[in-house]
């Protein structure tokens, strides 16, 4: 029996480093938050002029708290959107039963398929294996990922394997128990697991609800600023950049994000599967395999096959491009025994849009700071009004967060999607470098018989 998926904390830095771009995303996220919520940045601008004033000791923490509260609200709204999809899914398919699958069962089955029986398995391998196969969030949270089996009456059945991911939890719905899965099914599950990784754009830092932030900022800005033509002009520029970012660049991002998500999930699965799973595929098999994973790309099928009411379908070009990437990855595995890094998979338009988002956000921050320079004198009445406005903003943000978190609890209780408790894990004492443990797991997965140890030690 699998020992569990609680991870040794000592490895956290190594693991985080393994997904370096997850860290870079955090930096991006901070930048994004600053850009979207003018309150804090405008306040920074005001500081330049106000200089040191005891009242700032009150206003500054209040500004930060209000910003944090409203920014968190944006994040939770994103989560709430996924919950809405989950609830609708549950309501539409209420004739199905949903049974939680222990993560240990999934890992156990995956391990049995990946590691050749009879190979000596060193102590600690199982924990490292879990770290390698599950998303980063599972490592930090421990109860992030939940596998759920769909059971039906055999009159109906799901044509889809699906994952729903938020920053709090992720659910993967399967039509088969992991213990009954073959290696292709395991590839499919790994693909879904890839969608729940924070490096995937599914849980994107470009969250929705940007207008909420703008509207929330307006009362504070109205009190804080000296309304004269220059202020109006600067504010106009701010709105111009804001709307072009929201209505043009982010829409472009959305178009590419879905494609990028799929390519990332494929990459996540490929890098974790043993290369022997793909070695014997003939050219025709590869074609069939690629078509099954990506769809045929024909316009009449794209809508029913790839899109959902929540997502626009991939364009024909994107489907073809994905097929090309899939074929290239299998061909690399067959010829060189390795895949192409996800970061090196060309996606010029996506990178271009990402860069545009970055520049526009920088511009928003700069304009916000300049707007702060247009602040009105901090009279007592204005000071009191600002304190009250920011206090109210914090309260409203927190109240809404509590409401949305309530949905989380509601879902947990009603869908019975609670994780089946894991067996206790033995503490992992030795700290291993990322490279070492990744190499160890890959070596174990790719083992071809040069060793003769018949033991399977746990």
């Amino acid at each position, binding site marked *: 029996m699998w020992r569990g998926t609680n991870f040794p904390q000592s490895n956290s830095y190594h693991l985080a480093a393994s997904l370096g771009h997850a860290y870079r995303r955090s930096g991006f996220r901070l930048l994004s938050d600053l850009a979207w919520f003018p309150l804090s940045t405008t306040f920074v601008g005001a500081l330049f002029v106000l200089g040191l004033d005891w009242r700032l000791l009150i206003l500054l923490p209040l500004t930060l708290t209000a910003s944090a509260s409203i920014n968190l609200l944006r994040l939770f709204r994103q989560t709430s959107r996924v919950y809405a999809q989950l609830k609708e899914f549950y309501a539409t398919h209420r004739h199905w039963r949903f049974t939680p699958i222990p993560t240990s069962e999934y890992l156990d089955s995956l391990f049995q398929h990946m590691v050749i029986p009879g190979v000596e398995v060193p102590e600690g391998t199982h924990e490292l294996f879990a770290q390698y196969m599950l998303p980063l969030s599972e490592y930090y949270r421990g109860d992030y990922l939940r596998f759920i089996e769909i059971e039906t009456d055999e009159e109906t*059945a799901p044509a889809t394997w699906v994952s729903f991911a938020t920053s709090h939890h992720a659910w993967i719905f399967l*039509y*088969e128990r992991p213990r009954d899965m073959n290696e292709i099914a395991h590839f499919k599950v790994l*693909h879904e697991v890839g969608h729940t990784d924070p490096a995937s754009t599914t849980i994107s830092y470009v969250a929705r609800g940007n207008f909420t932030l703008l509207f929330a900022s307006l009362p504070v800005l109205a009190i804080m600023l000296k309304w004269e033509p220059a202020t109006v002009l600067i504010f106009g520029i701010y709105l111009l950049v804001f709307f072009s970012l929201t209505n043009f660049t982010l829409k472009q991002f959305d178009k590419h994000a879905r494609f990028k998500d799929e390519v990332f999930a494929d990459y996540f699965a490929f890098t974790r599967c043993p290369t022997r799973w793909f070695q014997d595929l003939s050219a025709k098999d590869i074609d069939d395999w690629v078509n099954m994973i990506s769809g045929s790309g024909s316009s009449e099928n794209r809508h029913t096959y790839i899109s959902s009411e929540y997502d626009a379908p991939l364009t024909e070009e994107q489907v073809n491009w994905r097929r090309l990437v899939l074929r290239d990855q299998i061909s690399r595995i067959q010829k060189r025994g390795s895949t192409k890094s996800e970061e090196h998979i060309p996606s010029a338009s996506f990178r271009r849009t990402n860069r545009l988002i970055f520049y526009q956000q920088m511009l928003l921050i700069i304009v916000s700071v300049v707007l702060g320079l247009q602040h009105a004198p901090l009279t007592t009445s204005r000071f009191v009004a600002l304190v009250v406005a920011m206090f109210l903003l914090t309260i409203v943000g927190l109240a809404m967060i509590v409401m949305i978190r309530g949905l989380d609890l509601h879902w947990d209780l009603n869908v019975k999607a609670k994780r089946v408790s894991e067996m206790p894990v033995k503490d992992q004492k030795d700290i291993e470098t990322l490279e070492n443990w990744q190499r160890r797991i890959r070596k174990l997965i790719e083992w071809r018989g040069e060793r003769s140890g018949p033991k399977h030690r746990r």
Partner: protein
Amino acid sequence: MDEIAASINLSELNHRTDEQVTFIQGILKDLQPLQTKMLGEKTVRAISKGATFETIQGGRHLNFMEVISVLSNLATLTQIVVLAILAIRKLRANAAWKIEYQEELKKAVTEKIKNHVELSDLNSLIASDPIILDRIIEKVTTAPGSPELK
């Protein structure tokens, strides 16, 4: 041949016995080994039983409707061939299966499908892959465990 086509009882198309379901499952595995492996045992069993497949909205998903549709059509075609054989056996008064019946069987099945609008997907399947019916007939008439041909 018209007589055979008329005797194929399509009302039994979606009432497959467990024996027939297992038999169709075997045929599907023979005809589309990678596809059946891809979909997994449980899904192939559901296809063989004639289950209705539902897509899931939202989230991120792998949707196999396209390949499920192809396999469902193959399963239906296999079932029609089985029903046609049953019809022939009935008409020929339980005579032993003869190799020359195969051509007759093919024509009867094609004729039957052409006359039913709801089977237009099968028409397209046969049109796109002209040897698929021959292959199914061959599999059904030669596969061990065929419940109707023992």
